[in-house]
């Protein structure tokens, strides 16, 4: 028994060693804020500039999805001050009371924002969030390759169903996006719940299967660059990258309409460093900083005052700086959560067909 004790003690010792090691890292109250979002979504340069100017240390928790951020904010709201999440997630976080109202008195730069992107369904009076980066998704097409296949030029979603495009499309890998694409093609809205319409969309979706060669959310532009696909439905920052690598690739904003995403800053319900967090937010809203962020990350800029600081080629790029005309055809995914389960099931069936 004594020997057993030795084993137990050595185990406990090793465990406590680990505990104490970890405790070392904790440190005392410091001038810092904790931000959470995708890696590089807030460029390092910007954060370093902020740290230099204010002496506030920025800890950047990197995550891969909106849903991860939700789980983390829910589990430990006092560990985080700020997060950047996509529109629909602002809605969920707000309704679940995981985020708190912004103190606009501390955000004099708030007025710089473009009202076009404000007052959206997820935060009608702009109390909980403000837009940080705008993106859309649309088609990136290789017109020459489409012609070579003997297909008609692609100008709308409907054109994706052409037989000639067999195994030549790459699309975003998410039920909501793909069901949305089909619903728009049929002339409906994104969040249709009517069983008849959904059934109609399902049939239409299944007809598309043969034309898809790959589902890819992160680097779909690569498929156009290496020639395995002739057209892709992808996010704007990816299309920008694709076109930069091959100028023969052209963006096509489908006539039926296309989705827009507004990524915005939100404040955790138990944010420990409110003042510093607001200081950071105000910094982000400064025109020059905002312009620099858009340039570095390839997202559309929601800051009116920042427009004059944007470089010419950014302003002239229709994907980064879409005209009002184009934007009027874009819409957010509203209330998808109510239909998500159904869409997911159809999507799984579609993939396993």
């Amino acid at each position, binding site marked *: 028994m004594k020997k057993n004790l030795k084993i137990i003690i050595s185990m406990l010792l090793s465990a406590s060693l680990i505990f104490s090691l*970890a405790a070392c890292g904790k440190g005392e109250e410091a001038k810092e804020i904790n931000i959470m979002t995708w890696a590089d*979504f807030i460029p390092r340069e910007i954060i370093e500039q902020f740290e230099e100017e204010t002496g506030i240390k920025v800890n950047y928790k990197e995550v*891969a999805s909106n849903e991860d951020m939700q789980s983390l904010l829910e589990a430990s709201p006092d560990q985080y001050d700020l997060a950047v999440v996509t529109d629909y997630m602002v809605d969920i976080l707000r309704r679940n009371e995981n985020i708190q109202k912004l103190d606009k008195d501390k955000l004099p730069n708030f007025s710089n924002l473009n009202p076009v992107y404000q007052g959206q369904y997820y935060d009608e009076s702009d109390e909980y969030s403000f837009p940080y980066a705008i993106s859309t998704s649309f088609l990136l097409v290789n017109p020459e390759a489409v012609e070579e296949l003997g297909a008609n030029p692609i100008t709308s979603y409907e054109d994706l169903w052409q037989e000639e495009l067999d195994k030549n499309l790459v699309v975003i890998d998410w039920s909501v996006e793909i069901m949305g694409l089909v619903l728009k093609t049929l002339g409906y809205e994104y969040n249709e719940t009517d069983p008849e319409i959904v059934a109609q969309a399902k049939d239409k979706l299944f007809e598309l299967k043969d034309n898809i060669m790959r589902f890819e959310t992160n680097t779909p532009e690569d498929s156009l660059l290496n020639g395995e696909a002739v057209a892709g439905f992808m996010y704007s920052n990816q299309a920008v990258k694709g076109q930069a690598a091959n100028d023969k690739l052209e963006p096509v904003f489908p006539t039926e309409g296309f989705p827009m995403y507004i990524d915005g800053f939100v404040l955790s319900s138990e944010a420990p460093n409110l003042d510093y967090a607001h200081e950071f937010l105000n910094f982000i809203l400064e025109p020059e900083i905002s312009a620099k962020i858009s340039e570095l990350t390839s997202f559309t800029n929601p800051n009116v005052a920042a427009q004059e600081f944007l470089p010419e080629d950014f302003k002239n790029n229709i994907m980064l700086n879409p005209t009002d005309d184009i934007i009027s055809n874009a819409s957010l995914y509203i209330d998808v959560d109510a239909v998500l389960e159904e869409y997911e099931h159809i999507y799984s069936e579609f993939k396993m067909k």
Partner: protein
Amino acid sequence: MNKTSNRFRTFYLSLFFVILYIPVLGVVLYSFNKSPSTASWTGFTLDWYRDLFNDKVIIESFKISIKVALLTSILSAILGTTTAIISTYVTSKMENVIRGVMILPLLVPEVALGVSLLLFFSTLNLPFGILTLVLSHSLFCMPYVYLMVLLRLKEIDISIIESAKDLGATRWQVIKTILLPLVTPSIITSSLLALAMSLDDVVISTYMSGPTSTTLPVHIFSMMRVGVTPKINALSTLILVGTFFIVGLSQLLNKKSNQ
């Protein structure tokens, strides 16, 4: 062994290693590619290496990964070996219970384990960081050590232990002088495995890392929205070269000391 089978052995192993390393060489190759995309080769550059050294985030996350992996492999080596040795002393019913419990971490899908540990640790009010990372990683690494050590323990000739006991050896002495030396090779290979698995974990680490403790794989995965840069390829190349260098050096030193 005769010559032909020796030659076949060398051939087979060489072929295996070539195939094993081809994808790795692809990673190395594209660390020198001008274009940030893997879709095409547009020319040779060393820029990614320069950028890598200026990228504090990557360097920092790499350091954290190494720290976590080392602590994890030590902790899982201790726990796994202890468990394996203990399991040979308990009743056979208890042994089965231990086996069952040790397979649990392998059975539960990573996401499920990650999300539940997140809730669990935040209820306990543990600060998320190195501690939670090491605790959670050792959970799925420990079974491997346990398994490998157990495999070897089972093969040990009971008569050795019996005779040691007849000579008056205590249980602790038996463990220290007979069992441990015999299982050491298994402990080493399985802790290397644990090290590699901890270094590579992304799903559980996503939930277990705190604001100041992003690990390298988490960094890479969360880069996907904005785009993974070849800086990561550059870092991997350096890790490879560095490890090769260390391994080669130790082989050389070994040779010298043998002479």
